[in-house]
């Protein structure tokens, strides 16, 4: 049996760790301070392949249960220059919520109160740990919806979504999380508290002052800690319908998307599953009985009952000449089932090769719509070149693709090839005029590409970071490339042992 062995990461002396815990237990009044070796172990990962290979264990973890806890932690960290890494559900894929430079992981998932649903003003005020699906269940009772909809809806927290500017399947029509955040309460690195989007405001629009809300959204906890969000809501669409179209030639799926846009319809989601993803979906949900071909497209339209039927028929007619099978449904159980298969396909691809699991690496590229077929072919060629199975799915309507790499984490050679393949996929996206992260965020995993992707703009970002966080204690090594962790990142040599 080969066992994956890694070293225990100890960054500071035990005396320091215990001293910090003792101090913080006094200062943190409602939350919990964890310092036992076993307790902090589980704050060393997110869903990334990077931390799957090697957890980056913090010196301690604090489960905050109030804004006062967050302020106390930040004041203390500021005084002693201790790195602090905010963390939501740790469902991210970029190692953006682990303590890459040691220090404190500040868990915000237990700050999960929905403070107010302001129906008349179409807003929700909540704490960062509220899980996306729960928020939408609650606002649905008022006939409202918080439109951003990540595949990870059942685990992602709204704080994490804001911090990574998550997009999700409906971003193609409704835009990213940043479009739906009206204001934030932020604890700055020195412990001071600010409210962005005008203090005490319930305005739905504002042209007042520098747009600080958008600065903190997507900052991945490098500028401060979000402790409260004022979110914009929409009236919930009355109906939706879904068109599913099967293609035996990949390129025709790309053409179909263009054709639908030309027909003047704006679907609320357009998703693609390639042949391997279809296989995985069928393995997870045999009852779906999806036809396995080169690609499946799912077009969702929402609005009023008559409108969605018209839209769905129109889309079906438009793509029919290109597809081998087209059908549509406005039956909610059928739609929900297809969405469920889509939402779990990411993790379910592990079933494609026994002994392998999904490696969340290189999983979030975004390319121009016109280059999607080229990108999909490119990924397939790289998959052959590196001899690593890759299933690709994603929000084709926005150009966002999720290559799902399979890895046998106990085979050092496999791990090495996955590392090289990941790098090649990232460069493929950049070569084609895209980005290394369409919606998941940079974290540490994609920090090395920031220089190539942003050029001189990166220096401007750094100046902003420096102004707000002069001591560099907020989530260091995330986003900014000079700060790639000194700990082995993707290290094939970590895998040892005989068979």
């Amino acid at each position, binding site marked *: 049996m080969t066992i994956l062995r890694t070293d225990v990461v100890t960054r500071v002396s035990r005396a320091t760790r*215990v001293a910090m815990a003792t101090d913080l237990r006094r200062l943190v009044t409602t939350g919990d301070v964890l310092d036992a070796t*076993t*307790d902090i172990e589980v704050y060393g990962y997110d869903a990334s392949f990077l931390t799957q290979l090697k957890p980056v264990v913090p010196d301690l973890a604090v489960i905050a249960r109030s804004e006062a806890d967050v302020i106390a932690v930040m004041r203390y960290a500021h005084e002693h220059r201790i790195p602090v890494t905010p963390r939501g559900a740790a469902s991210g894929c970029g190692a953006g919520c682990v303590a890459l430079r040691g220090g404190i992981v500040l868990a915000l998932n237990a700050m999960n109160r929905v403070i107010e649903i302001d129906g008349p003003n179409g807003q929700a005020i909540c704490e960062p740990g509220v899980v996306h699906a729960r928020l939408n269940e609650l606002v649905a009772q008022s006939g409202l919806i918080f439109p951003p909809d990540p595949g990870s809806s059942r685990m992602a927290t709204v704080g994490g979504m804001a911090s990574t500017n998550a997009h999700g399947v409906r971003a193609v029509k409704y835009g990213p999380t940043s479009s739906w955040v009206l204001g934030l309460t932020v604890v700055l690195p020195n412990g001071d508290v600010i409210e962005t989007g005008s203090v005490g405001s319930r305005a739905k629009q504002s042209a007042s002052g520098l747009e600080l809300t958008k600065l903190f959204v997507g900052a991945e906890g490098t500028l401060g800690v979000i402790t409260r969000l004022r979110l914009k809501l929409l009236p919930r669409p009355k109906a939706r319908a879904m068109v599913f179209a099967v293609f035996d030639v990949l390129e025709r799926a790309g053409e179909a998307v263009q054709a639908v846009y030309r027909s003047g319809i704006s679907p609320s989601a357009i998703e693609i599953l390639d042949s391997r993803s279809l296989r995985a979906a069928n393995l997870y949900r045999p009852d779906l009985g999806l036809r396995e071909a080169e690609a499946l497209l799912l077009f969702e339209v929402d609005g009023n009952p008559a409108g969605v039927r018209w839209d769905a028929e129109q889309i079906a007619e438009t793509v029919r000449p290109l597809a081998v099978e087209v059908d549509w449904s406005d039956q909610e159980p059928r739609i929900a089932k297809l969405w469920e298969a889509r939402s779990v396909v990411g993790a379910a691809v592990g079933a494609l090769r026994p002994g392998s*699991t999904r490696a969340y690496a290189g999983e979030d590229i975004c390319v121009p719509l016109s280059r999607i077929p080229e990108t999909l072919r490119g990924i397939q060629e790289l998959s052959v070149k590196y001899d690593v199975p890759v299933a690709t799915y994603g929000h084709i309507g926005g150009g966002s693709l999720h290559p799902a790499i399979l890895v046998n984490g106990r085979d050092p050679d496999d791990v090495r090839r996955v590392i090289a393949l990941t790098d090649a996929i990232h460069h493929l996206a950049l070569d084609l005029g895209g980005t290394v992260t369409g919606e998941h965020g940079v974290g540490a995993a994609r920090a090395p590409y920031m220089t190539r992707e942003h050029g*001189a703009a990166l220096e401007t970002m750094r100046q902003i970071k420096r102004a707000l966080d002069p*001591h560099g204690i907020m989530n260091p*090594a995330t986003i900014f490339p000079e700060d790639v962790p000194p700990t082995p*990142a993707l290290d094939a040599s970590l895998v040892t042992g005989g068979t």
Partner: protein
Amino acid sequence: MGSRMTRTGDAMAESLVAPRQVTGSGDMHVVLRYTIPGRASSDLRDDDAGIALPSGAQALLEAEYENMLACVRCGLCLTSCPTYVLTGNENEGPRGRIALVRALTEGRIPLTDELLTHEDNCLACDACTDVCPAGVHMGPIQVALRAAAEPAVRRPVWVRALRTMVFDWLFPSMPRFRFLVWLVWIYQVSGIRAVLRASGFLRLIGMSDADDLLPPFVPDFLIASGQTYPPEGDGSDGAETVDLFAGCVMSTALASVDHATVRVLQRSGCAVSCPSGQGCCGALHAHSGDRAGAVSLAQSTIASFEVGGDRPVIVNSGGCGAMLKEYGHLLADDLDWASRAKRFSSRVMDASEFLATRTLPVMHPIGAGSVRVTYQDACHLSHAQKITSQPRELLRRVPGLELTEMAERSLCCGSAGVYNVTHPETARELGSRKAESIIATGAEVVVTANPGCYLQLRARLQATGSKTEVRHIMELLDEATAPVIAR
């Protein structure tokens, strides 16, 4: 800046070797190490040494290592987990528990009291397994860890003695079990209970929660001694003989449910055989670290049912059913038993799973006018056995029964085997939460299919003063299918 524009694969390879020298405009990140000065070493807690891993533990853990590695840490399980929902602590969620046991298996962390506590707090409700898209099976990991750690677990002498008595002496013998239940009956009807309750003695010794769970019953035990109950009804489905797994609690303290099950099966046209030699399924042993005890009970159960050939084995307790279906996995490495266990497990069906395929005689309403009913999914029926639609379908067949769903329907009620005795506080919190969800539906009756849930719901609903009646699905179907003359 430009100098860093290398291919990233190279950059990564570089970073593997040594800490990168921070150069150029990257001088902002100055924090690498920090110290909190002026602390005495007496502040040190000696919790890191851990407990030595008992011999044989490593092999038990490694047998489930593949299963642990399947976890991709997506976090989908978190909100399904009762203890994570209550605490918000990653250590108290499925992903954290798997990470801990994996790190333990890899030798990266020691076995500590904290780790054991987090593991022990798990209700083994299997909700995480149910939602996991990567195919992790939590049950076997947990059975392995509890069995691996058990020799090292520090327990007070009296607890050890109690465990030995319960696991080695009481559960393996149905006559002893029946004797104990009979004593409980005496305790209830003699007035001793009333005196102890009124005096506050139970509260004083911390047993009041456990006492609240005791149901009122008559000792009309169903003793499985090889008897067969003949079929009734019109025989439209064809006569079939089924074997009944009577259970330990079900055939004694809740014997009325077993009797009801037999009657409903008879009315569905089945002959019901009760093979002798059967007893407890061993689920409590498996979930309490006594793997050997579980294996021994599994073997005697399998042997006693082999007389029935390939007949369906019908069970009316979700918890026992899940265990019986798990025998194939439990004994997979035992050369003498693997195929026998697999064959037995393939015969096991929950009563609702079986009855959903049968025609039941004309159903009567269970009350005057319409009765609002909500169904509580027992974790080991819904999560472990994936049986959720069949009981609901059976309930919908009852005229005048209005089925309504409760909020958080997949969240555990806190019963979880003996969890409500070993972890009364968490169990009470979960039970009260469940009671609130039930009351919010306005249902007059809550139906379940597991003895633990049945007792827990009764206790928690009573504590809130609710009049909602708790019934096992077989009791309700018994009433609905009873010949009119007998009603």
